[in-house]
């Protein structure tokens, strides 16, 4: 069952050095209120697990410019020119994973799997440092799961238990990240009573969600 908190309260426990997942694909599905709260929070030396790093001074780009991000694990950091700059200057470590392997590794963590065999990336530079396994006649990378301390996600509507539904392409990495962290904090537009969402349409069942934050509860929007 989820607790309802302000953005600042929700992220208050996040310590320096934490591993944090951030949902979103570009700005869509990005927990902007929570990111704004993190910008006001002292935690640094963070490892962020996210598809991208937003853009210049936008989304996670804000935290990057604050030198709070030690390492980024994801698939597409190109749209934020600061990522390249910080990387070149040795201020940012990057672990690049093909987007589908990245998504699947997050899901695997949430589903208690020890890893999976993927044909994607075999024979490329991104196979370096990975275990390569021959199984049933084909070559695969053994991709380990991606776990985190926190998942900061964005949904559209929550019920008071913490069940979530999303909006359009805002779903992206949010439902899988919700499953893969010790603590899942969901930023939502609206919180309704339990029972108001149809049992057939709930995408994230409440057992994954620890804290609900109303969007804009830090005047971030």
């Amino acid at each position, binding site marked *: 069952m989820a607790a309802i908190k302000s953005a600042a309260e929700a992220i208050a426990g996040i310590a320096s050095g934490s591993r944090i997942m951030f949902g979103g694909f570009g700005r869509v599905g990005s927990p902007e209120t929570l990111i704004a709260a993190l910008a006001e929070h002292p935690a640094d030396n963070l490892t962020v697990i996210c598809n991208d790093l937003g853009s210049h001074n936008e989304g996670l780009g804000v935290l990057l410019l604050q030198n709070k991000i030690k390492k980024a694990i994801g698939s597409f950091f190109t749209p934020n020119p600061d990522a390249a700059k910080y990387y070149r200057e040795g201020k940012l470590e*990057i672990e690049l994973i093909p*987007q589908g392997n990245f998504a699947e590794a997050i899901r695997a963590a949430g589903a208690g799997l020890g890893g999976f065999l993927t044909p994607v990336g075999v024979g490329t530079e991104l196979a370096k440092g990975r275990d390569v396994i021959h199984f049933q006649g084909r070559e695969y990378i053994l991709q380990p799961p991606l776990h985190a301390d926190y998942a900061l996600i964005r949904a559209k509507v929550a019920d008071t238990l913490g069940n979530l539904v999303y909006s359009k392409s805002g779903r992206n990495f949010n439902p899988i990240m919700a499953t893969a962290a010790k603590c899942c904090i969901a930023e939502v537009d609206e919180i309704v009573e339990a029972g108001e969402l149809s049992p057939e349409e709930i995408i994230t069942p409440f057992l994954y969600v620890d804290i609900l934050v109303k969007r804009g509860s830090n005047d971030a929007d």
Partner: protein
Amino acid sequence: MLTDEERKERIAKRAAEELADGMVVNLGVGIPTLVANYVAGKKVYLQSENGILGVGPYPKAGEEDKDLINAGRKHVTIVPGASFFDSAQSFGQIRGGHIDCTIIGGLQVSETGDLANWLVPGKDVLGVGGAMDLVVGAPKVIIATQHTTREGEAKIVPTCTLPLTAKQAVDMIITEYAVFRFHGGRLILEEITSDFSLADLRSVTTARYEISPELKVRVV
């Protein structure tokens, strides 16, 4: 001399001919995106790896939905019968071979079908996106690319010198001058445009290729 726009239009038009009614296609950024302009009249469904099956046309200015973008981060619309899903499901569709075809750009294609399209030389390694997943997963991989680099260097080469996206993954190459297909691991020239000679083509293509006995000339 063709303009950049003319080259792109030619490639996109020709690539669109590969798409048939009922196909599900993922279009990469750049030239592949333009393919959507030439499928009118065919029931082709576009998948976008950020979690949409059934991408529609771009919205009119002022009618954008802030929660609805494609993988190129452009606002889009959806068609009737579209659905949304998360990224793991999306790449399950892609890796599992359920997207019939992907049309994607290329920096280099080797004569054995290797593809390099994610790492621009001299730039930092900061983005791979879904390219590797798409190229490995899709049953039909079409590379839609200009025939040479801006500097006139061959992109269809004996061996990729740039970092690979995937090995032996390409089924077809469509450029502004030619169409190649891979058959049994061999690269076959199947079409050439009427404004380009076989000798011209050979001079801008360093890969070894065979000429199909049924070579078509495409009048342009």
